């Protein structure tokens, strides 16, 4: 079997297998899989509203996935995307409501603030890793909690012990009347454009620039990079900062697009953690991340439509997890395909 064919077949078969097992789950629990999957499909592509919603869901996943993938490619494990995202969200929401500026300045400023906040939150573990060899996994996990509670405290102090910040001004919003009308208020926003640009930017940084060359080299082998005259420490910090900036931008999507403010959070958004899965699904390559985010976001949003035909959320979660599980374990299918083609050859 040719390589190309396998590369296309594996994910397709994975998705079908996941759906099949999901169908069995629905059958066993007494629900109609046909109805369920029609609802899932319509929940993703049914009409302009669901398409808009799907794109909105995909947007932060792309950026969170890029954040994790970028760190991975440079030899770092950024578990702190969640916290960086929260800080980016907070920063964008703050800039969005606290200033009154023309849109041409206000929107970029809010986006930049989010990227900077995320970058700053990632700078700390980067610095600790570079200077003191503190493992970034521990630091970033802890920074997640700090981010969550710092953000909550800031929100409460801003809103005078209320639970949310004021809504951002129109001039900082990524939403538009055009998109709202087109997609029947799906809350889809122009953030998807930013996310797609970032996919290209990550690809460009890693594959085209000399800085990307250094970042990758340092990620693979610090000793050899130092030997070759690269500044290992500053590259580690820079890698974390760029990763954090992506995460901060994911937060900006929530602040300037989906929600328009930030609310006191009882727990994590989960987007940052899902970003790890998205990055792995996409093999840490920018365009792979895009595909991973599309799969993740589409399933996540489409599945919201399944309870509308009476399938309980718990079953829906199991089905979605199954599909993702099968895609992630594409290796198994690859091996099966190889066995099959070997058998054929033998005959």
């Amino acid at each position, binding site marked *: 079997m040719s390589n190309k064919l396998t590369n296309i077949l594996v994910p397709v078969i994975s998705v079908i297998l996941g759906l099949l097992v999901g*169908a069995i789950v629905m*059958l066993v629990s007494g629900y109609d899989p046909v109805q369920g999957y029609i609802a899932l*499909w319509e929940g993703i592509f*049914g*009409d302009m509203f669901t398409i808009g*919603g799907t794109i909105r869901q995909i947007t932060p996943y792309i950026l969170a996935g890029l954040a994790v993938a970028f760190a991975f490619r440079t030899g770092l494990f950024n578990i702190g995307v969640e916290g960086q995202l929260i800080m980016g969200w907070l920063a964008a929401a703050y800039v969005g409501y606290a200033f009154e500026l023309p849109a041409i300045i206000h929107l970029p400023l809010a986006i930049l603030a989010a990227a900077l906040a995320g970058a700053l939150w990632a700078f700390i573990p980067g610095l600790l890793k570079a200077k003191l060899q503190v493992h970034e996994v521990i630091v970033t996990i802890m920074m997640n909690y700090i981010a969550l509670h710092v953000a909550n405290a800031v929100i409460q102090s801003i809103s005078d012990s209320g639970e949310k910040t004021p809504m951002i001004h129109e001039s900082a919003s990524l939403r538009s009347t055009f998109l709202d009308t087109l997609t029947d208020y799906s809350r889809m926003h122009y953030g998807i454009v930013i996310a797609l640009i970032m996919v290209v930017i990550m690809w460009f940084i890693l594959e085209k620039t000399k800085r990307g060359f250094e970042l990758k080299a340092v990620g693979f082998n610090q000793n050899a990079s130092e030997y070759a005259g690269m500044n290992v420490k500053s590259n580690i910090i820079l890698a974390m900062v760029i990763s954090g900036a992506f995460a901060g931008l994911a937060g900006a999507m929530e602040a300037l697009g989906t*929600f328009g403010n930030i609310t006191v959070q009882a*727990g994590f958004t989960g987007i940052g953690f899902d970003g790890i899965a998205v990055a792995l699904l996409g093999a840490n390559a920018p365009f792979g991340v895009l595909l991973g985010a599309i799969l993740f976001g589409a399933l996540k949003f489409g599945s919201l439509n399944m309870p509308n035909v009476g399938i309980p959320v718990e079953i829906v979660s199991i089905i979605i997890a199954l599909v993702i599980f099968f895609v992630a374990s594409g290796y198994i299918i690859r091996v099966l395909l190889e066995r099959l083609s070997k058998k054929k050859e033998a005959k």
Partner: protein
Amino acid sequence: MKKRKFGLALSVVLAAGTLLGACGSKDDTTKGDKEDNFSLAMVTDLGGVDDKSFNQSAWEGIQKFGKDNGMKKGDGGYDYLQSASSSEYNTNLTNMNRRNFDLIFGVGYLMADAVKEVADQKPDTNFSIIDATVDAPNVASILFKEQEGAFLAGVAAASVTKSNKIGFVGGIDIPVINRFHAGFVEGVKAVNPDIKVDVQYTGAFDKAELGKTTANRMFTTGVDVIFHAAGATGNGVFTEAKERKAKDPNANVWVIGVDADQYKEGQVNDKTNVTLTSVMKRVDVAVQDVAKQAKEGKFPGGETLVYGLSDNGMALADSHGAISDETMKKIDDFAKQIADGTIKVPEKVEKKK
């Protein structure tokens, strides 16, 4: 064996059907006749419909209303959707609107923004928000005087404590929970100003283990009655109390539940129960009330409805004998005075300087 094969074959067909079906998909929801068939729905916040708290209570109210009016679950009748994350509130509300429900409840203060946004976008549908106020002509805001119910609970707690130490476990530090807090402290003081109330906010509504450790600490320091207003975090308070009671059946350990009657949560065994009473927030009563008005064409859009002791929006649950008749009398007395306005219960705790 046959069956399994059939199942597999079926699911293959079904999977294929999914793809085909999707190709031919179109919007086949038909516009229902709004005037003839009143329908209503709700969207839960993160707690889910079986949270043994206000989401569940709201759903019970909707179910009761549906049955009373001969409606069926599903489109054109009554239904609910659960939200797993805050980003889903908006989508779920829109989904319910797309299914043409006439009145849609958003349960919980967390949903206020989403209700506001969707209500602005869909001015022809009526919405209602529970535990928050939303300023829109097609939204009825439902609030409760939690402080009034909590006051009575404070009276009950002050009457059973032997150590003169009482605990309050709150979820997140937000106005709703502050009202419980303020009313409770006030009720305790009305009985005995010398009683110390140990107040602890856990910062979460979904962390039972946090509730358990907090309760453990309180009980260890001599607290013998805890009132929790912390959602699922409060389940940990019950667990801790039950464990103590199971170990030592003579221990004076009580928990006061919140939102719904949490008597079942306190069951240690057939004979013992640690639930003193519960401060019931009758979301079901409020939901039915608003639904009734809407069905009759008198939807209180743009208004804020506040339910308290006087209109059965707040109540204490049956204590199953844990509270003496004498105390019950005292409680009833306070309840009357609150209902008729003689006693004004504050919404906020005076911050000590």
